[in-house]
């Protein structure tokens, strides 16, 4: 009785915070299992193994209304789009709606309509304030353009925008072209998200040369201490195989070859695209869907010589008669 429930909860919560991992995956304080389940009916976080109630009276962050179809949901919802880093204003500015109708749904007079048109125009212009924001706007639209040309998903765009914003804050853009830094940010984001695009592919959609992209990337990743693991050639396999129209079988075989030979250390120091290309070539031969070295080289944008060399090394290591 010395402490109220509220204070006890607060103490317990602070305890919880200490036992939490950095990633937010928690362990049960009593039995150390990570099998924690949310029970939304009672607002509790419980351990499935020992039954401990880890958290209770969790506040439900959802809406206070229910909706039974899409239209109802649109009407009742009071929130808008989620904030995004891909827009220079993070999606936070508002625009005047395009419909020329007043609050009652009636059409407005033509004088008001032209006034609204002018207001919209000025609202659009006011969105971008100073040079820094304009820089950001241009860079973000470049990232957007390149990302859609490459066909990478939204999440990569967000990561690339975040990297660029950090670079802008650390003033790394000085002396470099905006496009260069934007391209390197996108390259870094692709690698980080596990869907790497080779420098050649990125330079195709960028306004900057391959060498400059590489140089800028090295500089940026060093300054921002982006921890980049070396690219896994297996990530290139699905894309190249689909461009060459090879079957699933070839893909799996190529992955196998890469795994086995990488274990033996053949990968270190070699370009991952060339490595993957050679593995695909080998797999295509083994599965009787032969593609010439020329074709594979074109798709992977490496030289035939690279493929030939890697291929020789790989089949030696695999112990297959070449």
């Amino acid at each position, binding site marked *: 009785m010395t402490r109220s429930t509220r204070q006890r909860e607060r103490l317990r919560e602070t305890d919880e915070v200490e036992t939490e991992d950095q990633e937010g995956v928690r362990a049960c304080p009593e039995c150390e299992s990570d099998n924690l389940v949310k029970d939304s009916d009672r607002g509790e976080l419980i351990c499935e193994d020992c039954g401990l109630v880890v958290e209770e009276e969790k506040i439900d962050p959802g809406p206070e209304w229910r909706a039974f179809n899409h239209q109802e949901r649109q009407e009742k919802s009071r929130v808008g789009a989620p904030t995004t880093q891909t827009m220079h204003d993070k999606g936070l500015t508002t625009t005047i709606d395009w*419909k020329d109708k007043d609050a009652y749904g009636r059409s407005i007079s033509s004088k008001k309509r032209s006034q609204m048109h002018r207001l919209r125009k000025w609202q659009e212009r006011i969105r971008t304030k100073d040079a820094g924001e304009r820089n950001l706007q241009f860079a973000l639209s470049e990232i957007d*353009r390149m990302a*859609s*040309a490459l*066909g990478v998903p939204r999440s990569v765009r967000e990561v690339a925008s975040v990297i660029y914003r950090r670079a802008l804050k650390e003033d790394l853009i000085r002396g470099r072209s905006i496009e260069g830094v934007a391209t390197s940010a996108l390259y870094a984001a692709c690698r980080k998200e596990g*869907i790497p695009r080779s420098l050649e592919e990125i330079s195709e959609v960028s306004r900057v040369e391959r060498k400059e992209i590489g140089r800028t990337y090295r500089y940026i990743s060093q300054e921002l201490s982006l921890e980049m693991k070396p690219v896994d050639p297996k990530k290139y396999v699905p*894309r190249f195989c*689909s*461009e060459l129209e090879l079957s699933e079988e070839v893909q799996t075989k190529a992955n196998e070859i890469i795994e086995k030979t990488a274990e033996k250390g053949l990968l270190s120091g070699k370009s991952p695209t060339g490595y993957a290309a050679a593995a695909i070539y080998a797999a295509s031969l083994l599965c009787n869907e032969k593609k010439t070295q020329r074709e594979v080289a074109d798709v992977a944008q490496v030289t035939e010589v690279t493929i030939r060399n890697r291929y020789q090394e790989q089949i030696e290591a695999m112990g297959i008669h070449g």
Partner: protein
Amino acid sequence: MDTALDRTIRRDISREYFSRERLAEHHYRSFNAFLTRGMQEVVDEKATIDTDIGDKEGEEPVHVELGDVRVVTPRVREADGSEELLYPQEARLRNITYSAPVFMEMSIVKGEEGDQRVVDSTETKIGRMPIMVGSEKCNIAGFTDQELIDIGEDPADPGGYFIVNGSERVLMTSEDLAPNKILAEYDTKYGDEIQVAKTFSQRRGYRALVLCERTRNGLLEVSFPSVSGSINFVTLVRALGLESDEEIVHKVSNDPEVVKYMLENLEEAEVQTEEEAIEALGKRVASGQGKNYQLKRANYVIDRYLLPHLHEDGVEEEDVRINKAHYLCRMAEACFELALQRREADDKDHYANKRLKVSGDLMKDLFRTALNKLARDVKYQLERANMRNRNLSVSTVVRSDVLTERLEHPIATGNWVGGRSGVSQLVDRTDFMGVLSHLRRLRSPLSRSQPHFEARDLHATQWGRICPSETPEGPNCGLVKNFAQAMELSQNVEDEQELKRELASMGVQGIPGLEGTTRTPADD
């Protein structure tokens, strides 16, 4: 006793008919026509993207020429970059859009007239176009029943809808008054009954209402977009090139009573010559501006906003104005005939005066706006790249998201260009009949809250075309209709000039003094 065809024979004919023609055939015909011809027509209309580069000193003008457009079958691009054929069931399950990449040839051309060189020319992907399930470019077109089952589709599914973000959406066929036709009717203004002749003049997605009305004084007035209020008929006709009194009276009609009315009108005329008329028009449209600007504006308004449909491909520019004058005289004649009760007011519910906009037409309007937006974006990117002295290349200048977004968003929400909403609806999957009924539905754009008694009535011309019994109860009774069982929708003519030549060869005479095409003498 069945004096008509025996019931079993009728049933056999019906079955035979539906084994060939699919139930949503009008959707397919329209969309296929759009894919094969419509898209190319829209691109050809646009033809070039001009930029403002070259307006300054020391810069060569740059423009982009648009070439052939091509659509492939739907594919999906995964996160790892691989691309595969997309089938409808996968699109439904994964909540993605069943769309196909669109490629267009673009060339960046630098230089003045006569001294141009192509800087870069490629066929690039400009975006993705949602494809109708079961149409020509659909991946399951032509599959046998067993193949359909294997791929996860229902063989009995009629198709004819789009899949956008996983939901199946139908584009509602809507009915409108026929464009480019003169319709005469009575109207009341300040308590008096007046006669009005209307025409919806439509060209390339722009629809203008041109009105010619006979006021209570017997005077003719014309009104058209961009000009507030109405203009005196005689003034306008003189501005278009018909100067003398005899010409005007003659063009309207030869009937003595009509001539009498026309002479009354001519007495009240404010201008006598073409120049005076254009000046008067200029004062009207750009009052308070300099004389030059007034003339320029008057000419612009006449060419752009008055009867735009008369600017056809085979007609010379000089003739177009005279054609417009002739057309206005026809409208005046309609007014007078209505006043003299020689002609009945046109029935707006008669299906001869109506045209249907099916999915292909709606997609064409959408594609036109999307292409314009893409053109604006390309212009902006070119100007910016030029400002930073970068090499201009087609692949860095085109952003495929712009077009894709502009095509998918209206289908997903139902808000079409032109401010209409409710154009695309979620397919009613209550039961099989619900699907068929939904695909064969017809919407009228009239407001649901007004009574519109005549529009909601069953009209005699609906016989054989529109079901007399299938219509909802409640506020849209009679405004939402369904097609009859054996209804067939005719498509519009591809080449109007060929139609005119054909008619001329059959002996149809043109209006004297009006040469649309070279006339071939009648053979008989």
